[in-house]
């Protein structure tokens, strides 16, 4: 007995440090695996942001010069009429784009969620625009919206000569053309998000409401849509992000014109930093864009983290 006990304790004593090493290894291994990835992201993301931030405080033009002039570039930026037009466009474009996409997405998801036939095929068709680059979207829509080539001409050839649809060349309306093309591209994706959300709605609750005699519109308004709130929220964040970084659509659809009436901040940044040799000004506009993203992201992060703590 004693002997066996002794052997056991001995082997346990031997194993203990080994087990501890293994435990420690298990604790360290994930960190070891993750370190390179995180380090690269950390250095690239934050290092680059810092770099751009520093550049925006210098008077660099064609090449970076580390000659700090304080917030001069930001003052110039907000005196720049073109930048103000771009910001204005972003607010108008972003607001309309997000609103229409959300409304259309919910509507289509509800239509598709009714056990209709060929749902799979429809879902695939709706996703297709997502696989098309904004350049192609812009090119295709440029035709449709071009007064002398597209819809206007088609309707004229049908005999309605008074029909006019020249938003693409109207400086006040050209932003709406961007909205149409962007909605075309993104609403299918939003629909897919809402469809997944609808599938997660508690069916028991819907049944209970139906037994209580609630009509379908009421059920949708009172039960289903409120339970989709998180989907609304993440769709909003994704769409806002798309709106802020939109560059290709403007480049292909309008080229920023007529004049600079349809510029968005990303186009402003590209033009000034790379073709007009105003690197400092471009960096400053990039930093303002980052600020815009943060203004949207921080509330999202906050609610997400708070939600985790409650759960």
């Amino acid at each position, binding site marked *: 007995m004693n002997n066996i006990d002794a052997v056991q304790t001995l082997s346990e004593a031997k194993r203990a440090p080994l087990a501890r090493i293994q435990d420690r290894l298990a604790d360290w291994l994930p960190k070891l*695996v993750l370190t390179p*990835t995180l380090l690269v992201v950390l250095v690239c993301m934050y290092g680059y942001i810092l*770099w*751009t931030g520093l550049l925006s405080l210098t008077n660099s033009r064609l090449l970076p010069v580390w000659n700090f002039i304080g917030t001069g570039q930001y003052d110039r930026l907000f005196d720049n009429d073109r930048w103000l037009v771009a910001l204005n466009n972003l607010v108008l474009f972003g607001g309309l784009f997000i609103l229409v996409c959300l409304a259309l997405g919910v509507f289509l998801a509800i*239509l598709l969620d009714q056990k209709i036939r060929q749902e799979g095929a*429809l879902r695939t068709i709706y*996703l297709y625009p997502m*696989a098309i680059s904004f350049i192609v979207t812009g090119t295709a829509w440029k035709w449709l919206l071009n007064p002398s080539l597209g819809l206007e001409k088609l309707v004229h050839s049908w005999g309605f000569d008074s029909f006019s649809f020249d938003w693409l060349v109207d400086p006040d309306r050209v932003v709406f053309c961007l909205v149409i093309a962007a909605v075309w591209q993104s609403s299918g994706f939003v629909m897919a998000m809402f469809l997944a959300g609808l599938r997660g709605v508690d069916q028991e609750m819907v049944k209970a409401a139906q037994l209580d005699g609630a009509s379908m519109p009421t059920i949708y308004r009172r039960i289903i849509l409120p339970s989709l709130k998180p989907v609304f929220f993440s769709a909003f964040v994704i769409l806002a992000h798309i709106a802020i970084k939109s560059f290709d659509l403007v480049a292909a659809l309008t080229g920023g014109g007529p004049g600079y009436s349809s510029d968005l901040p990303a186009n402003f940044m590209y033009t000034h930093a790379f073709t007009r040799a105003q690197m400092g000004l471009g960096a400053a506009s*990039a930093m303002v864009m980052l600020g815009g993203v943060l203004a949207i992201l921080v509330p999202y992060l906050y609610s997400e983290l708070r939600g985790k703590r409650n759960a």
Partner: protein
Amino acid sequence: MTATINKPARFSGVNSGAKRKVDTQLRRKLGISAYILFVLVPIYWLLNMSFKSNEEILGGLSLWPQNFTLDNYAVIFSDPSWYMGYVNSMTYVSLNVIITLLVALPAAYAFSRYKFTGDKHLFFWLLTNRMAPPAVFLLPFFQLYSSVGLFDTHLAVALAHCLFNVPLAVWILEGFMSGVPREIDETAYIDGYSFHKFFLKIFLPLIRSGIGVTAFFCFMFSWVELLLARTLTSVEAKPIAAIMTRTVGATGIDWGVLAAAGVLTIIPGLLVIWFVRNHVAKGFALGRV
């Protein structure tokens, strides 16, 4: 999604009689058809233009080509400045997908299998990085690549896109990996599999639809991204999208060729979507993507 779940639609029929049911169904079909029309018209328009000559495009408007021609496609396949655009785009997109998967697979495994302090926050932080506007990274990338001689190479664009794709890939893969029960890992160890053998022979096949979805999203992002790709290349690695915008600025617009180029850029996306269409639904169901 199974038959046991009663969709609200069934009940609306019970409540409101047959006539109204037909009515709502008609309206539903109308709504869906209208949207399909909205989705398909621009694509049809593009396809239609690509088979017309420039004179026909500018001359009059027709719903289908009067003189069907493949000249526009012939121009693209015979002119190196056009078809090299496709080769360049394909090269950096493939490079990017491979690098992203190689980096993201171990990271996602670590997030899904090990608990460590701050893992949830770290995971979320990684994802939020993706939201930064690419414009912020343009100048540093441009200067860095110019100084190390990476400028205007396929690798340069692939690496720049990785910065955005790796967090996304880790996020999607982690969802799929967490769906694989941990017991499988343990059983494999007991059966004497070494880690790398287990990972390659058992684990990867189990999450292959996840890998497919991840590859799809990386492909899509990289294929359609223009700002970084255009800034970081000039001649050798210029992507097709940048070539398309360049043509717009030059002597008038060669509509027919531009349409043909557009049609050709859609095709890879269509193929990829077709292959992963069922997996994508799975990804949406997991709340990822």
